[in-house]
């Protein structure tokens, strides 16, 4: 999905926390958004996901405004995802039920994805008994299962232990490569951005200070703020 951001601003109580004149996320790109706390990263991706409205400006998805068809084709995963008060299986099956897919196919697709993500053993467990990291895996599986062409991840792999992080990253990478999806990933882990993303944007004070290929932004930043941020991240 191609995303075009135009003159976007967001103001809370007279404080402008987001001001992006223009930004283009081409179809099939894997964009990493990095930046300090309070930079406006979550606000930006929530607006892209249609969960928040901009104060001014607009976003075009494949050259059109947000509508139900586009909404059905994108998703967002949060750091602290909301899990439905039911089993892990039903949580992951839910997006397919919404799309009136038959039971057998739901079963096949759920089994496939929980196998890939290594959470098959959890499928009958009640979602509210999961650990934080397990919950994040379930949320990722639930997001990938309906093949959205835009996937937004807001610190979706924070709290994950080092061995599981690779399993989650593999799932995301495989998804990206097999589905030609567009992925936007907010992360505080610069190494993760380097491992996964092909473009990176550095946000600070509500603006996109710098963007380019991962190598450009991470190894050869031009702006002072980016340099400092990246240097500190690698210390």
């Amino acid at each position, binding site marked *: 999905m191609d995303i075009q951001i135009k003159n976007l601003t967001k103001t809370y109580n007279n404080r402008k926390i987001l001001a992006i004149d223009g930004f283009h996320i081409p179809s099939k790109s894997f964009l990493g958004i990095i930046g300090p706390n309070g930079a406006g990263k979550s606000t930006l991706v929530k607006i892209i996901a249609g969960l928040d409205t901009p104060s001014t400006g607009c976003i075009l998805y494949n050259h059109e405004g947000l509508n139900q068809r586009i909404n059905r084709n*994108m998703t967002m995963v949060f750091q602290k995802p909301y899990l439905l008060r039911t089993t892990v299986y039903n949580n992951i099956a839910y997006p397919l039920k919404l799309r009136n897919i038959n039971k057998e196919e739901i079963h096949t697709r759920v089994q496939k994805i929980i196998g890939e993500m290594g959470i098959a053993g959890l499928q009958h467990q009640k979602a509210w008994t999961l650990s934080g990291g397990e919950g994040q895996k379930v949320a990722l599986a639930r*997001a990938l299962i309906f093949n959205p062409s835009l996937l937004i991840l807001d610190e979706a792999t924070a709290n994950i232990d080092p061995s599981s992080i690779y399993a989650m990253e593999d799932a995301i990478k495989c998804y990206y490569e097999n589905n030609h999806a567009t992925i936007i990933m907010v992360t505080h882990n610069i190494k993760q951005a380097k491992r996964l993303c092909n473009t990176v944007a550095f946000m600070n004070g509500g603006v996109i200070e710098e963007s380019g290929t991962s190598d450009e932004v991470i190894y050869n930043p031009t702006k002072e703020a980016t340099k400092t941020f990246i240097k500190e991240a690698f210390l």
Partner: protein
Amino acid sequence: MREIYEGIIKSIELLLSLDGEIYRIILLSLYVSLTSTLISALIAIPVGIVMGIKKFPFKQGMIRVLYTFMGLPPVIVGLVVYLFIRRSGPLGNLELIFTSAAMIIAQTLLVTPIITGLVYNGTKEGGEKIKNLAKTLGANKTQTMILLIKELRISIFAAMVSGYGRAVSEVGAVMIVGGNIRHHTRVMTTTIAMNHSMGQTDMAIAIGIVLLILSFIVNSLLYRFQQGE
């Protein structure tokens, strides 16, 4: 205190006596209060949820009015309904006065703000997250509403239990619009009030105990329903 002891004995005797009248009173009570709770729930659940997740003008004012209506004295509700449905009132030709329908109307008015307010409170807590999740997974408006009801079922049931408790225990409204007519609009609370005023304290206590037992049974059923998936 002797009355309470005698009341307990009497309540057991009463239930075992298989006296038709007492069972009719109990059934009418249940019928009137459960029907008004259900009608209220049909209105209050969607309204409470929408109030909890939507922003709209005068919301704060509306919520204050709602909270006030949650504590409405039953006699006042009874009186207002009475003024509307008495023979000379604007709805007099419907001939509702002193019928079980009148009691249901009064209790519905009494209970709807209670369920709405409690559902609103429950939705305010977790509704936004549920709504956002539904949206990110591609749910349409109806599917979102269904998901909200499903996910908030615990607070919704708690709200309904409170509403039912209020309905079945109030006496002022049903007394005014129902009239405590024997074999017709006599319910448990009006029987208790009448027995008390006639000095039959043991009988009043006995029916009070029956009321408590029934409350316990209804709540247990609702509780089991709420626990199940």
